[in-house]
């Protein structure tokens, strides 16, 4: 089960950058469950948004105003 979740997560990451092999795609569509992909998708979206937010916060702290 954990293995399948990780595989789903990896597939979602692949979907984020838009690159996937035909072999993995066939595996996912035959063996994967929709619920796991939906949860992994939502999780990755949250992580992505938090990452952007965090990056902006770090930039705002470290970039010194020169004006």
């Amino acid at each position: 089960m954990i293995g399948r979740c990780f595989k789903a997560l990896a597939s979602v990451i692949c979907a984020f950058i838009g690159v996937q092999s035909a072999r993995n795609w066939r595996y996912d569509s035959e063996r994967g469950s929709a619920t796991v992909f939906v949860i992994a998708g939502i999780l990755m979206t949250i992580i992505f948004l938090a990452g952007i937010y965090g990056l902006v916060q770090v930039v705002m702290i470290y970039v010194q105003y020169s004006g």
Partner: protein
Amino acid sequence: MTKALTLALSLVSAPAWADWQINMNEGVTALSREIFDLHMLIFWICVVIGVAVFGVMFYSIFKFRKSKGAVSEHWHENTTVEVVWTVIPSIILIAMAIPATATLMDMYDTSEADVEIQVTGYQWKWRYQYLDEDIDYFSNLATPREEIANEASKNPNYLLEVDNPLVIPANKKVRFLITSNDVIHSWWVPNFAVKKDAIPGFINESWVKVEQPGVYRGQCTELCGKEHGFMPVVVEVKAEADYEQWVADQKAIKLAMAGEASKEFSMDELIAQGEGVYKMACAGCHQPNGQGIPGAFPAITGSTIATGEMDTHIDIIVNGKSGTAMQAFKEQLSAVDIAAVVTYQRNALGNSVGDFIQPSAIQK
């Protein structure tokens, strides 16, 4: 031969090239140069990418053409190549975001300003209020109506000249608080690089620090109605000492004007001054001859207001008429100007009511 040489020389001379400038303006401030450099950096990155991508594409089209017996290869995917062409553009975009973010942060850093000026857009003029000094005035188009109507030849600063330019000191950080009184305008001086919308009910901030004294010109850049092209921005940058002198002069003028308002004027004096006020504030809509534009702007000649009750006439100029293009002029015109323009409208432009009013009787 001499002619050809002159022509060739004129093509390489600076003014000839200035007419053909298609690149962005480098400007006159450290920030405008920073923006220009960023623009050029991104531009050259795009050029390199364009040359590389189209180079490979055109080479492949030529080298592997059908007439040379090229046969297309059939394959479905290559994950490595796909990852490479996804990761490389991502890296390029992130690399470009670093200098762009730094420049944006400079643009938005309006802190620690030496001078603060509120810029308000009006249909169709700008108002400048110096928040630390008691200075507040309107900046109107100064191009004569004859030039606009093609009745006189156009001067080099045609539609880029005003009666009262914005005056700021050189080498000082000046913060602008930009807003509008009526519709959306936009305050732009190309040499300062940054353009800001003037939106009613909002205050947008911008700043500038100009090194060289001089006159810099710009325009309203948000379509704002009939005279959108007739409300230029002119900024006069003065050396610090000259700026201090200008501030002192403005205060002296204001004191003198306060004295004027209690003075008694003759009817002729008022009509003479009123003609200038009319051309500056009224003629844009009501037309220089007072005939108006039927269906859009009423005539002053024979108008029931301009030839009727004095109080009604003054009221419409001071407070405007809501729901129409007639704006309130109480902020824009002094008591002397209002008395003068009322007297002018009643006794010129084909009207001859025969009465006049003193500035001291104008209630604003």
